[in-house]
């Protein structure tokens, strides 16, 4: 009953946070990216292979899209997600919310679990809403028999990505306890991990725009562009970070 009450409190509180506004911002940003400027680049992922005449133009578009704007685009989206998480997590410390919750007869494990679940739902929502909406706009060429497994795969990938992003933001917020510092250090840590772990680069680039249902389908098949270690690596990283955060939260954290 205590945990259920705490979880409801957290969900109620968190979803009153401007998370819907942030979700809408990401959504609009992605729609803008896909619909008006970079549809050619995105079509590489959902349409048929380009003809030989189209190759030079496609290459040029891909070069611009992938080397420049995709990176910028990805990190803008990440920045919005991190800023949302940083605000929510750091607000817990600065507002006195955490101090209040830990003053009640609740175990630290319960408080930690309630926060993890809530923020994980929030992060997944931020990412998945944008993906699903833009994929719907694009069509994606996925036929009904493939639709359900594709969606399941996409949700799975999104949860992995959300756990990864959330665990980075959580660990940084526990260290810095400040919104701006959490935001900056989370982005830096993401960039650092991105460049440090080659195996990690694969799943990240497959999860950030342009993603598609087709991409999600591929991971279920042989010859998937996402290698197994590419899924396992971010899971291990986020698992390790969350375990470290839990140990710190339950045994060392002072508020």
């Amino acid at each position, binding site marked *: *009953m*205590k945990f*259920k*009450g*705490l979880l*409801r*409190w957290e969900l*109620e*509180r968190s979803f*009153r946070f401007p998370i819907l506004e942030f979700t809408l911002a990401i959504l609009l940003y992605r729609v803008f990216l896909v619909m008006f400027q970079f549809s050619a680049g995105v079509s590489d992922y959902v349409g048929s292979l380009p003809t030989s005449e189209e190759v030079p133009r496609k290459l040029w578009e891909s070069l611009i899209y992938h080397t420049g704007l995709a990176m910028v685009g990805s990190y803008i989206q990440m920045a919005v997600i991190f800023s949302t998480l940083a605000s929510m997590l750091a607000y817990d410390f600065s*507002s*006195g*919310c955490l*101090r*209040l919750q*830990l*003053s*009640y*007869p*609740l*175990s*630290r494990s319960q408080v930690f679990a309630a926060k993890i679940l809530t923020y994980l739902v929030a992060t997944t929502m931020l990412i998945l809403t944008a993906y699903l909406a833009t994929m719907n706009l694009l069509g994606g060429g996925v036929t009904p028999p493939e639709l359900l497994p594709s969606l399941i795969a996409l949700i799975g990938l999104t949860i992995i990505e959300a756990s990864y992003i959330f665990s980075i933001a959580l660990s940084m917020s526990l260290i810095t306890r400040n919104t701006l510092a959490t935001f900056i250090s989370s982005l830096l840590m993401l960039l650092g991990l991105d460049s440090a772990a080659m195996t990690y680069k694969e799943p990240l680039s497959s999860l950030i725009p342009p993603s598609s249902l087709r991409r999600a389908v591929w991971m279920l098949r042989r010859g998937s562009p996402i290698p197994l270690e590419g899924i396992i690596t971010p899971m291990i990283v986020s698992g390790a970070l969350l375990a470290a955060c839990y140990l710190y939260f339950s045994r*060392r954290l*002072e*508020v």
Partner: protein
Amino acid sequence: MAIIKADGLVKRFGNVVALDELCLNVERGVTGLIGPNGSGKTTTIGIILGLLKPDRGEVSVFGLDPWRHGREVRSRIGVLHEKPFFPREMTGRRFLRYVASFYGVSDPEAEAGKLLRLLDLEEAADREIKGYSAGMVQRLGIAQALIGDPELVILDEPTANLDPMGRAKVLDLIGSIARDRGKSFLISTHILSELEKVCWRVSIIFRGRILAEGSVSDLMGKFKAEEFEVRAMKLEAAVKLLRHLSSVRDIRVDGERGTVIVRVHDPTVFQEEALRKAYEMGMHNVSINPRYGVLEAIYRKVIPSEEGETA
């Protein structure tokens, strides 16, 4: 028997020593924890609740170590923090229902309703907390601290933001709960005149140490008032009278207020001597009162003067 016992507590935040070998005994009843800003009151409360871990020393609350057995300890304590946070977007009633569920209250709705009535928040119960005035937020904080009928209620500045009527009501409430239901309170406040209306015992904390501790009457005997305020119809005659008393150390006339401030060697001798002389001289309208309230007088004696002046 002490419900809180701390021995040799040390807590540092970087280079700042917040608690310096602090020894504290809180017994059943109403205890005031008083001291200037930054003296270690909030740190002490944090350690009692298991929110902070002492660097050294031992503390037990209901016989348990609050850092290791925080949940058990907190299930018997209600707390109002200084500058409390409450979820602004929730209604007062909903918030109290959640808190009641944390304390395992069988009927959270009824408990919330009872406390909302007790703290005069019934009309605002279904409004979002962000629409509450500062005084209403404070009363909500007191209500949530009383949920589940805890054995010990810790109140950090409970009368902050309350109007005079609100203050009186809260103090009456604390007094009656302690007296009639046998609950204990640990109250940290700067408003000593209010605290002395309800508290049975006092612990005076300064720079992370307890400088004095005991029942109010014990401390009154130990730290007697040294300054008195004398009022008389004929101020000049009163000054003349006071100058000849052997128990008087020095006197100062406060012309604006029409009083004489007297510092004395022995308060008991002074009061007897002054009243007898005034009667002999036919000065029947003389009033002699300690310059400060009971707690303030004790506080001023215990705390070094430069801090006492600002408290």
